[in-house]
């Protein structure tokens, strides 16, 4: 019985999934998705797939209701039409929330953007130890006693020795009956990764620019998390000086002032040196800015930092330039001049939300 409906509903889910696939672009550019992230599941409200019919739109026809109220009074929120009979074809009513695991979402994202799986760099991945309870032992601590097995053994013994009385089914385990759970230790090689987000929060970065960074970071995070088991995120904001902040602050901070990008790169470099030795870590610095740096001197300093310190240590360094009304957008040009051919450095411009999709592909499409 369950099989039959199971097939039909998984077919439905497949279709829905196809729908997600097609509309992923739309979801990616929508900020609200991130707000809905909870317990690793994203709820995507999906319009129920409605077979098309020749039918009237309820918005045109209205209907008949029952209850108190004066003419012109709006129907309450929960009392919108829809319900019994054939009524209720209005949009918004047939909304089905489909929960999609973030990992699933990442998979879809990967398929859609044709993102290659990331090859973790370096062989010196940390081996993690994990205890798995798989076996049964005759001895062990009481806290691991396997009740069912123990009981079974006792029953077995009592029956075979004729002690068992079905009318008075008292089963008493003795010491030999006791069974305990036991574990084996598995060693799993594990690649660690750290994402270091850097954002320019100088006066020229407006709300929309930050929103783009926020959305893009979410998807990058989702993807990288699907590729690495252990992932850390660090957040750096900078104007003329840089500081490390938490995630919330990173996305909500409002600063103003000048821009010295090198300050962020220096801090980033220090972070790597102190906490994330490149031999053990896959390092992904992402820097978002509107490309308006303080001056040529600082830009030269940035390039030097990148060239000598950052690029040799990271998997890939990504710079995303968000278009703003004020910025000159010079920075990306300077970077391009120096690192055009360097695979370790990926540059991408994001002029609007619609381009987030392509930009993610730029960043992650190399599989580094």
């Amino acid at each position, binding site marked *: 019985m369950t099989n039959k409906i199971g097939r039909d509903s998984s077919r439905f889910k497949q279709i829905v999934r196809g729908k997600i696939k097609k509309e992923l672009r739309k979801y990616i550019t929508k900020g609200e998705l991130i707000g809905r992230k909870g317990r690793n599941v994203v709820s995507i409200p999906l319009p129920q797939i409605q077979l098309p019919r020749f039918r009237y739109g309820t918005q045109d026809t209205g*209907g008949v209701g029952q209850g108190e109220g004066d003419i012109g009074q709006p129907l309450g929120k929960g009392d919108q039409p829809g319900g019994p009979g054939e009524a209720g074809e209005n949009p918004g009513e047939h909304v089905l929330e489909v929960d999609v695991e973030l990992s699933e979402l990442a998979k879809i994202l990967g398929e859609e953007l044709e993102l290659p799986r990331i090859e973790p760099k370096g062989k010196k991945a940390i081996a993690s130890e994990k205890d798995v309870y798989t076996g049964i032992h005759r001895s062990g601590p009481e806290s691991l006693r396997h009740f069912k097995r123990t009981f079974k053994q006792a029953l077995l013994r009592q029956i075979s020795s004729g002690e068992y009385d079905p009318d008075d089914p008292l089963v008493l385990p003795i010491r030999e009956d006791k069974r305990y759970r036991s574990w084996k230790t598995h060693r799993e090689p594990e690649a660690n990764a750290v994402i270091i987000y850097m954002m320019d929060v100088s006066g020229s970065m407006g709300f929309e620019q930050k929103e783009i960074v926020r959305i893009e970071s979410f998807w990058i995070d989702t993807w990288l998390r699907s590729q690495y088991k252990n992932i850390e995120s660090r957040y750096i904001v900078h104007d003329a000086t840089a500081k490390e902040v938490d995630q919330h602050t990173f996305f909500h901070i409002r600063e103003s002032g000048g821009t010295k990008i090198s300050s962020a790169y220096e801090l980033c470099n220090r972070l790597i040196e102190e906490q994330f030795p490149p031999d053990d870590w896959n390092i992904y610095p992402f820097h978002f800015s509107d490309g308006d740096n303080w001056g040529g001197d600082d830009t030269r300093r940035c390039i030097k930092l990148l060239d000598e310190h950052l690029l040799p240590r990271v998997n890939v360094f990504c710079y995303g330039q968000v278009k703003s009304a004020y910025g000159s957008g010079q920075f990306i040009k300077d970077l391009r001049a120096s690192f055009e051919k360097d695979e370790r450095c990926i540059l991408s411009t994001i002029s609007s939300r619609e381009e987030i999709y392509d930009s993610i592909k730029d960043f992650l499409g190399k599989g580094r």
Partner: protein
Amino acid sequence: MAYHERPRGGLTPELSDWARRITAYAREMGLDFWEVCFELLDYDEINEVAAYGGFPTRYPHWKFGMEYEQLSKGYTYGLQKIYELVINNDPCYAYLMKSNSLVDQKLVMSHVCGHADFFKNNLWFAKTNRKMIDEMANHGTKIRRYAENYGHEEVERFLDACMSLDNLIDMHSPFIKRRREKALDDDEPQRAVPRKLRSKEYMDRYVNPPEFMEEQKKKLTEAIEKSKNFPEQPERDVLLFMIEHAPLERWQRDILSMVREEAYYFVPQAMTKVMNEGWASYWHSTLMTTKVLTDDEVVDYADHHAGTMGTRPGVLNPYKVGIELFRDIEERWNKGKFGAEWDECDDAEKKRTWDRKLGKGREKIFEVRRIYNDILFIDEFLTEDFAREQKLFTFEYSKQSGEYVIASREFKQIKEKLLFELTNWGNPFISVESGNYENRGELYLVHRHDGHDLQQEQAKDVLRNLQMIWNRPVHIETSVEKRRKVLSFNGRKHSERTL
């Protein structure tokens, strides 16, 4: 019967005892129904059965999976719960929710008796297949086999198309013979022979020049072609027309017929929603309060009953409207509040205390349940007093506020709107005007517009599905914002033109 193959939960001894007693009470009170088989299902099973429209052996389709997802989500979040499910079949099958309390089960069983009686006796159900459970199982088997033979995707795509047309049927056709019997020898077949002017033989070439004659002949042929209308009269049963005339494979024709058959099976339930629920509620209330309830169950019963009858402003609860109308009718016919004398009476006080002690109430409601459907029921028995007492109103979508607002409490408007909603069970009137439009084998449908436009986006998708089945360009004539238009789809692109 394939249906019995799956082991299912029978009733507990206590419940089967109650089932026996309740059905006996119901028969005593005059209800007349086939044997009712009650089965006890848990929430997941009942959601599944409900998703299949009551027929667990139904053909596989993602739409049922979607219904199921929605029902089980709704149940999990505590938004809705199916108490019972009754199938119009002989014997009548009724599914009860295992987790219901005893008083709920009693109520539901009483309610089921009302439905079972309605199915058996209401005129509009007379032509439905009473062995539908078997029939559905057969459909399921056939469609599964087609899917094996012709590919799941292929069959699913075809089913999608068929299902999107399943409201294009003629709900009255089981009762009326609409088509003229085809006379075997029609009159002299019309011939395309142009009349010649009289002339001498040697002058003929000049009096009736051959080129002209040729032209005349062509015109005549065209006229004859045009007069051979196909179909002869507009065909309301679009599905039947497609089955008879669309260039389909055998399996496709078979699937289309099955979808059509199922659509006809379900139509009476849509046509009598208010009456059917009203009748069943009337009887659960009557049975429970006079026979079945024990003292300690009264509060629980009242609570459940009130829940079922609850109203929300945006929705007309068919249970509530139905039961109130039946009670109103019963009271009016008990007291003789009908007929010319009653209608002409202007004295409010006299009307209020009016009682001719006719005692014809019960008899009348039994008659009503036999011969009416929702539209007739409401048209005839929903009175101005009733609308006022029940606080009915019409609502409209306000473009300004983007919300639905109460539009009117005028009786005339309420009734108009209600009748409109019920006409053709809420579906637009669409018929086939021509299956050989422009003499190019194209399909031409006409939507008889009654003040409301079709939903445009969906109409386009339906055209796409129609075209897939008809295999030639398809058109529908309808009105869009008060302009008469023809929407077309030729297999590649949509177009529209204003008439």
